[in-house]
C-alpha cells in the first residue's frame, strides 16, 4: 500500500473520553473551516496536524512545500477577527465549534500572525483579481491567522455520510480487495460518456478506480449532490464491474487554484491510498485565469510527490472513427468531432429532455430526470 503523504497517516481524533472544555475560550467557526478540521483529523490532509503556522505558510507560498520540504501547495488557514482574540494568547488551548457539522475541536494555539492578502492571492491563484472566487475568499478573510495543532473531539453524522469513507477506511478496503494500484477520479458533475471513457481508459492499466465526488457548497445552476451521487450509482451499477470500482465522497471546498490545487487534490487522493490521479484539462480552473494544461505542467516540479498523475487532454466522439477518441488517437479533423458538453446536457435536462445516448447513458439520464429539482437553486 502506498505510504500517506509525509509517511504517516495523521489521526487527530480524540482517543480517550471527551475532555472537560467548559473553561476553555470558545469560538464559532464557519463550515468550511470545520471541514478543514475534519480533513486534518481524519488524515485527508496528512501530514498536516493542524492549521499552518507562519513559517510553513511562507514556505508553501514561496516553495510550494512545507518547512520540512514536503510538497504542499494550498495554505490551510484559520482566520479570526482581532477583537475576538483579545482574551487569548499563544500557548493557550481554545475550543472551536460549528453547528452544521457538529465539529468541536481543540486548538493548541501556537502562533497568531498577520498575512499580506495580496501576496497570498497572487501567489496561490496567480492573480489578485477580486472576480476570481478564490481571491474573493482571501480578501474576505479576517485579519488574524491562528496556527496550531487540532484535536477533534466531536462531530455529527450528516447526509451522504454512508458514502464518506476516511483514508483509514479506504486503505482498509483497498487491502481487502487486493488492489495495489488505484486510480482516483475527482468529479463535480454527473457522468457523461466522456467521463466514463477517461475513467475506463485509466482503469484498464490499474486494479481499481476510486470515484471521489467533491460534495458541498455549490453555485446556483450546478447539479445537486443528490443527483451527482445517484447518477454515479446508476452508472456503476450498469456499466462497471462491482469488484473494480468504489465511490466515496470528499467534503472540501473548491479553491479554483488551478495548478496548485491539482497538486493538492493529488495529495489528498494519495492519502486515501490511491497510486494514480486523473488530471484533466483546466483542472480546478475557473474563467481564463490558467492555461488549459497548467495543471499538467506543474507536476514536473514535484518528482517526489509519490502519486502518479494521469493526464488527459480533450476527448470527444468522432463520427469517422465511430467511437470516443482523444487528440492522441484520432487523425480526423475537428469537423467530425462532437464534444461532450456538460453545458448542453444541462440545457436539455432543464427542458426535461433526455440527453442523446451518444452523450450520456440512458440509465444515467433517466436517473437525473427523476429528480424534480436536479439543480442548486
Amino acid at each position, binding site marked *: *500500500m502506498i*505510504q500517506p503523504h509525509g*509517511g*504517516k*497517516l495523521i*489521526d487527530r481524533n480524540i482517543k480517550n473520553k471527551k475532555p472537560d472544555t467548559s473553561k476553555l475560550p470558545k469560538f464559532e467557526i464557519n463550515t468550511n473551516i470545520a471541514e478543514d478540521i475534519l480533513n486534518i483529523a481524519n488524515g485527508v490532509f496528512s501530514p498536516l496536524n493542524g492549521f499552518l503556522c507562519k513559517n510553513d505558510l511562507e514556505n508553501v507560498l514561496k516553495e510550494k512545500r512545507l*518547512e*520540512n*520540504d514536503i510538497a504542499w501547495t494550498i495554505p490551510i488557514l484559520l482566520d479570526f477577527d482581532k477583537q475576538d482574540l483579545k482574551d487569548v494568547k499563544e500557548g493557550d488551548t481554545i475550543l472551536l465549534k460549528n453547528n452544521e457539522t457538529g465539529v468541536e475541536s481543540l486548538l493548541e494555539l501556537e502562533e497568531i500572525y498577520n498575512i499580506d492578502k495580496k501576496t497570498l492571492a497572487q501567489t496561490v491563484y496567480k492573480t489578485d483579481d477580486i472576480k476570481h472566487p478564490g481571491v474573493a475568499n482571501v480578501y474576505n478573510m479576517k485579519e488574524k491567522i491562528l496556527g496550531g495543532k487540532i484535536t477533534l473531539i466531536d462531530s455529527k453524522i450528516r447526509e451522504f455520510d*454512508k*458514502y464518506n469513507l476516511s483514508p*483509514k*477506511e479506504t*486503505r*482498509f*478496503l483497498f487491502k*481487502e*480487495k487486493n488492489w495495489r494500484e488505484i486510480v482516483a477520479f475527482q468529479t463535480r458533475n454527473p457522468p457523461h460518456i466522456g467521463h466514463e471513457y477517461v475513467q475506463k481508459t485509466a482503469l484498464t492499466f490499474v486494479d481499481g478506480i476510486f470515484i471521489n465526488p467533491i460534495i458541498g457548497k455549490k453555485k446556483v445552476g450546478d447539479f445537486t449532490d443528490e443527483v451527482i451521487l445517484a447518477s454515479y450509482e446508476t452508472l456503476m451499477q450498469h456499466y462497471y464491474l*462491482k469488484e473494480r470500482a*468504489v465511490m466515496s465522497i470528499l467534503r472540501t471546498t473548491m479553491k479554483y487554484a488551478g495548478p496548485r490545487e491539482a497538486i493538492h487534490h493529488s495529495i489528498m487522493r494519495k492519502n486515501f491510498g490511491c497510486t494514480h490521479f486523473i488530471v484533466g484539462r483546466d483542472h480546478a480552473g475557473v474563467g481564463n485565469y490558467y492555461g488549459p494544461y497548467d495543471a499538467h505542467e506543474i507536476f*514536473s*516540479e*514535484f*518528482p*517526489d510527490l509519490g502519486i502518479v498523475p494521469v493526464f488527459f487532454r480533450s476527448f470527444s466522439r468522432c463520427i469517422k472513427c465511430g467511437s470516443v477518441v482523444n487528440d492522441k488517437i484520432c487523425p480526423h479533423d475537428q469537423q467530425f468531432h462532437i464534444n461532450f458538453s456538460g453545458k448542453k446536457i444541462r440545457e436539455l435536462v432543464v427542458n426535461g429532455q433526455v440527453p442523446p445516448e451518444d452523450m450520456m447513458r440512458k440509465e444515467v439520464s433517466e436517473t437525473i430526470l427523476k429528480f424534480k429539482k436536479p439543480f442548486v437553486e
Partner: protein
Amino acid sequence: MSEEEEKKYTTISIPTPLAEKIKKRIKGTGFSSLSSYVTYVLREIISGEKEGDEEAFTKEDEKKVRERLRALGYLE
C-alpha cells in the same frame, strides 16, 4: 542560512564523484538541489521501511467498517 534554519538541517558527507553524478542526473528535473534529491531518496527508503506500520482498527472498529463496506456493496 540563518542560525534558526541551520538548526533544522544537518550536513552529511557523500563521495564527491557520487555528488557530481547526482548533479548531472537531476539537471532538468524538478529537483532544485543535490540536497533535495538526497532528502527525497532517503525519505522514500525510510517510508518504505514503515510498510505495515499503519495503525490498524480495533477488532470492534474493523467489524463496523466491514459492515459499512458490505452495505455499500464493496465487500462480500
